């Protein structure tokens, strides 16, 4: 999924935007295609950069930032109407980690414009339509990090390759139904022979209460069956061991609801506005858990139910300035049976595989950000993460996210 590219290729990819700058015409409507680049950098003060959430097998991009200075997701996005019938978008993150630059394809999809009757079909690699934040790129989130439930259950975002069909009902009340058939091989799914075992369904509805306030409610469902899922096994500091943490012959499903309420005096968001947002997910998964370290193994059958929610409020109290508060909570209820000790005892297995639940992890975050224009934002955030296992982790982040090029989209 991650492929390294040479500096030359990167320069080639960016040369279009350089050219655009010299001719001086960059805008989403006038310039074809619209190019935007997100610059994300941060300074983090953190007790431990290793994310451990007992009871949750982590995958995907779940993690914590490094201590000190780091660059986040610097993101290149190119989009345009391809012709009168199709729209296309490519977003990739350029990540510098451990002395290496990696080019990650986040999204690359096409979408129909002319099916009519409320139908749209999207194909390619895309952020699934489930949940509320899942489809929104990290730089457009209201906090410096993703809600814990997204990291714990989806490895950051549910992003996969396949086809999505959406339909908007011809009603006054907004009703949007969507279905996706995807590979199902991305976390929390896993490798499957057919490469089409993932299914996602979602419904979104919403409207205006009056000129000042609007709401949206969503419900979603995801499922996948897989032969093998590799989870990121955690390593004790300094130990040079090869650990394999796998779930075999597994199936997973996630059901969730999300709610958003927005308010602005007279609906004029420029000076003041408030946003309340909450999401809740339940994940059920089962399979044969296998943990291998050097020549020692442990096996068990596993059936788990993990839930998580977050609730957050963000208030823009004057132009350019916002404050936000978020509370995250997770809970894991895992049943382990038929344990087989192959050199690793059950306690060690539970800890190393991530399947042994302890107290409920939770996190509280408070943030203040300043956006002098549509295109720049500087944010200060403090979070306290209690993973239910060790001491609490205090995280202070000072971050900038800035965009150059095409004007960003004002998603609800």
């Amino acid at each position, binding site marked *: 999924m991650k492929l390294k590219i040479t500096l030359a290729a990167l320069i080639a990819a960016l040369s279009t935007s350089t050219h655009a700058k010299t001719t001086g015409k960059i805008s989403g409507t006038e310039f074809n295609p619209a190019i935007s680049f997100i610059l994300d950098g941060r300074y983090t003060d953190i007790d431990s950069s290793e994310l451990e959430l007992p009871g949750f097998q982590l995958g995907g991009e779940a993690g914590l930032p490094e201590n000190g200075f780091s660059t986040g997701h610097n993101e290149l996005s190119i989009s345009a109407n391809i012709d*009168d019938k199709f729209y296309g978008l490519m977003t990739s993150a350029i990540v510098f980690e451990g002395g290496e630059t990696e080019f990650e394809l986040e999204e690359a999809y096409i979408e129909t414009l002319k099916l*009519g009757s409320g139908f*749209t079909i999207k194909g390619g690699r895309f952020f699934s339509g489930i949940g509320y934040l899942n489809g929104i790129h990290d730089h457009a989130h209201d906090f410096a990090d993703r809600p814990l439930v997204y990291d714990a259950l989806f490895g950051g975002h549910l992003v996969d390759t396949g086809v999505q069909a959406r339909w908007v*009902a011809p009603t006054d009340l*907004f009703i949007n139904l969507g279905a996706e058939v995807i590979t199902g091989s991305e976390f929390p799914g896993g490798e499957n022979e057919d490469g089409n075992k993932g299914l996602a369904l979602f419904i979104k509805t919403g409207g205006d209460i009056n000129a000042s306030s609007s709401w*949206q409610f969503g419900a979603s469902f995801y499922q996948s069956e897989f032969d093998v899922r590799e989870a990121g096994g955690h390593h004790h500091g300094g130990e040079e061991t090869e650990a394999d943490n796998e779930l075999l012959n597994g199936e997973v499903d996630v059901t969730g609801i999300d709610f958003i309420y*927005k308010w602005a005096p007279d*609906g004029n968001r420029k000076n003041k506005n408030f946003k309340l947002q909450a999401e809740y997910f339940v994940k059920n998964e089962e399979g044969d858990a296998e943990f291998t370290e050097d020549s020692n193994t442990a096996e068990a059958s596993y059936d788990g139910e993990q839930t998580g929610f977050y609730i957050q409020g963000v208030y823009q109290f004057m132009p350019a300035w916002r404050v936000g508060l978020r509370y995250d909570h997770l809970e894991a209820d895992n049943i382990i049976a038929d344990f087989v000790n192959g050199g690793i005892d059950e306690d060690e297995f539970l800890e190393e595989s991530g399947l042994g639940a302890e107290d409920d992890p939770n996190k509280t975050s408070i943030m203040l950000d300043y956006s002098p*224009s549509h295109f720049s934002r500087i944010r200060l955030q403090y979070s306290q993460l209690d993973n239910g296992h060790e001491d609490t982790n205090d995280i202070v982040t000072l971050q900038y996210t800035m965009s150059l090029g095409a004007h*960003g989209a004002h998603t609800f």
Partner: protein
Amino acid sequence: MKLLTPTLGLILFLLASPASAVVKVFACEPEWKALVETLGGEYVKASSATTAFQDPHYIEARPSLIAKTRRADLIVCTGAELEVGWLPLLLRQSGNSAIQKNELGYFLAADQVERIEVPENLDRSQGDLHASGNPHVHWGPYRLLTIAKALSDRLQKLDAKHVAQYRQRYQAFATKWKKQISKWESQAAELKGKKVIVYHKNWSYLLNWLGIEMVGNLEPKPGLPPTSAHLANLLELTRSTEISYIMTTNFQNDKGARWLSEKTDIPILSLPYTVGGDKKASDLISLYDGVISALTNYQ
């Protein structure tokens, strides 16, 4: 579960009312809703995505707007990047093929006329610039007439059954509007050469037309809120230049304007920017009437 989507879809489809005869119009701003209602009368049913109290640049593609674009036969928006943050998103999410770019159901007012203040050099250090020039075209009365003609033509193409009625309505509007223009021009003749400070350049077409000179902006750069350093510069300016008034609209934060006004005794005119902006501004003519009277009364 797999059958859920099509089944629900079918039910909702059957419940939906059959296509009615009127042209359903999604206007991005109240001025275009007013214009299309004047030109279409009973043959159109229009709604506006924004009110006169909202900055059209800051709207989000919220659920109710997607639901409205889904059912629209025609969208009438300003263009010139005023709605760049949300209109493209609405179009893509609507699943409505009739209103996509360059279709008959896609009408941008600013595309019909020449824009002023087209930036020579596009650089965001100059603020949130519109590459295609000043989008606030409804304050140019001659431009508005051109837009009305193009919009009427569009209605005639979309709804061929009522061509005669649309033509007649346009003629009636054009005659009345031209008469109004000469009335407003003589009423505002005395304003020629006056100097004003504005909050944002949304009055440029009006000021150009009436020969009023805009000598300052409360925004240091388009789209950016006033800063104290910038206000101090404006205060300096008022010492060397005689300024008749500070023009703001009622959706703009007037803190900076009030500060400057208190320091200098220059009156603030908080004006309705568009139809619905105050009690009197019920259509385009009464909107113009109100604003021009406010300008002339403050002599």
